[in-house]
């Protein structure tokens, strides 16, 4: 990767301050996303996926959040150095927009869907109302919602979760941003609609050359949409590389057990001994953050872990890899 990546996150460390003291919630060494690429982030609940998304947009509540160190470079510009006002004027909606994970509460309940879309389009693209209306209908058609003009006249509560999620995607797209953060955009949706939305995002990325940061807790969704991906655990990227490498040849015990947790078909029983164990093992101060739950822990895990190179396109933060412990079994 000789050229400058579109989004470059360097040594980002974010703490949450509470009465118990400071706790690190995000500690990312490096994420590079190229222009026009779809990058996936997977991890369990509470590993900091949404915190990452919000901190890119500087929407993280600042107490309790606290940025300790690091840079988020968007085309070389450090987003963390910008003021809220600059973010609002130059970045949010202009360059980056976000699809939120909860379709039930992301739309304003007192306005119709059309009204909200028209407002956003009028604001961001400087069109008059008639043109904005046309554009809104066009966007609703883009997300494959049937009967766009009728949908425009409905209030959010009159739409189903899937319809709303599509409206939200249409809204996020209609401001014309070139980078979209999709924070679990298919949560709460049924499988057919999930597939439709994944396809939609993939198409947008290909056809409009939109860069996508796709956040999910299901590795299957990543495999369908993303070129590269990172696995997030307790705020750290523990494995990253091409999606194919990560899913086919997982090197970190966590990724491995995460993939094992997906049911393959009705006959294969999930071997619970190979699925991620609960969070109740012995805690260690230093060393691998996954130590207390790891199935393959060894003495060497108590040392500081570094990101190791599996291939050019595949990195893992697990010392066991170098010692030749085969994760595939």
């Amino acid at each position, binding site marked *: 990767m000789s050229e400058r990546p579109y989004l470059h996150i360097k040594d980002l460390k974010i703490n949450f301050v509470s009465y118990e003291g400071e706790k690190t919630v995000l500690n990312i060494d490096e994420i590079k996303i190229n222009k026009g690429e779809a990058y996936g982030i997977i991890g369990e609940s509470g590993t900091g996926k949404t915190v990452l998304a919000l901190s890119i*947009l500087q*929407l993280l509540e600042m107490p309790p959040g606290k940025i300790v160190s690091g840079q988020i470079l968007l085309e070389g510009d450090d987003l963390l150095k910008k003021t809220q006002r600059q973010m*609002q*004027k130059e*970045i*949010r*909606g*202009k360059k*980056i*927009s*976000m699809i*939120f994970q*909860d379709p039930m*509460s*992301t*739309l*304003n*309940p*007192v*306005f*119709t869907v*059309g*009204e909200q879309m028209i*407002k*956003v389009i009028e*604001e*961001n693209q400087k069109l008059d*109302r*008639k043109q904005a*209306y*046309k554009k809104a*209908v066009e966007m609703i058609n883009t997300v494959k919602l049937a009967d766009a*003009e009728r949908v*425009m*006249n409905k*209030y959010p509560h009159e739409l189903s979760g899937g319809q709303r999620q599509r409206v*939200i995607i249409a*809204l*996020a797209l209609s*401001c014309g*941003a070139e980078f979209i953060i999709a924070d679990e955009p298919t949560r709460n949706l049924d499988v057919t609609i999930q597939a439709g939305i994944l396809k939609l995002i993939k198409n947008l990325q290909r056809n409009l050359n939109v860069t996508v940061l796709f956040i999910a807790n299901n590795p299957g969704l990543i495999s369908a949409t993303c070129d590269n991906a990172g696995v997030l655990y307790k705020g750290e990227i523990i494995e990253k590389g091409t999606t194919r490498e990560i899913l086919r040849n997982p090197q970190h015990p966590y990724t491995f057990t995460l993939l094992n947790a997906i049911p393959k078909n009705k006959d294969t029983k999930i071997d619970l001994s190979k699925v991620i164990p609960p969070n109740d093992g012995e805690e260690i101060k230093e060393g691998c953050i996954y130590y207390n739950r790891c199935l393959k822990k060894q003495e060497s895990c108590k040392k500081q872990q570094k990101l190791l190179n599996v291939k050019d396109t595949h990195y893992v933060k697990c010392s066991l890899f170098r010692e030749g412990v085969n994760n595939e079994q």
Partner: protein
Amino acid sequence: MNQSQLIKSLKPKYKEFKVSLFLLKKNRLTKMALYGVVLLVLIAIIVPILLPSAQHIDQDANPQQKLLQPSLRHPFGTDELGRDVFKRVLLGTRISLQTALIAVGMALLIGVPLGAVAGYFGGFLDEIIMRFTDIFLGFPPLLLAIAIASFLGPNLRNAMLAIAISWWPWYTRIVRGQAVSLKERQFIKASKAIGSPPRKIIFKHIIPNCVAPVIVQASMDIGGVILTIAALSFLGLGAQAPAPEWGLMVSTSRNYFLNAWWYSVFPGLAIFFTVLVFNLLGDGLREILDPKTRKN
């Protein structure tokens, strides 16, 4: 897409309005209150046009007919200058409604944006605004209004100002409470994420979402404000003679109460009826606008 669809898309509230109307019809007390309000508004608009002469004391006064009992010719009797109390009560409707609407409107204009700003930004600004409203809330509203009105000088315009100044903190509190909970909602965050400035979020997202409780409070307050205006006029701090203001009429009639009961009773009944009707409407509106009771 053709023109008619476009127009339809621009009027999305129509259906919502029909649902409200339907709910209104089901609730008999509210329906009657609404008719009462409509009646009062009609009286306020039409009567001053029909009876232009009654507004001029010199044309209407007739000392030979002073303090006559209610009769067919004078349904509410006459006052100490021989003016027809019925006409004056009807004429008073416009004064009361107008002043009440303007006073509540001014209170809303001050209170709602302040509350939204306080709730949305929070922190230091919130602290300052809310402590400032606390100062105003510390005084009983009537007492504060009396103080302000007597400070500014006794006339109807100053009475309205006094009432607006003593009424806005309630709206600030309501809206702030709403804004604090609304700003945590996802759609506000989403709006920020697509780059809306705070001014836009406050006016397009926070305030429209606070409309229901504010309308309810305002329609109930109109009754209270009418009462307060009457009270101020009664104390000589509001409307001045010869204005046909209800409170003022009750005040002057005190001297004749023992032998001319009609002179104070009918303006008093007018105040009673108006306040009752607005309070009932406010109560009904609360039921209709509350999504928990709103089932169709």
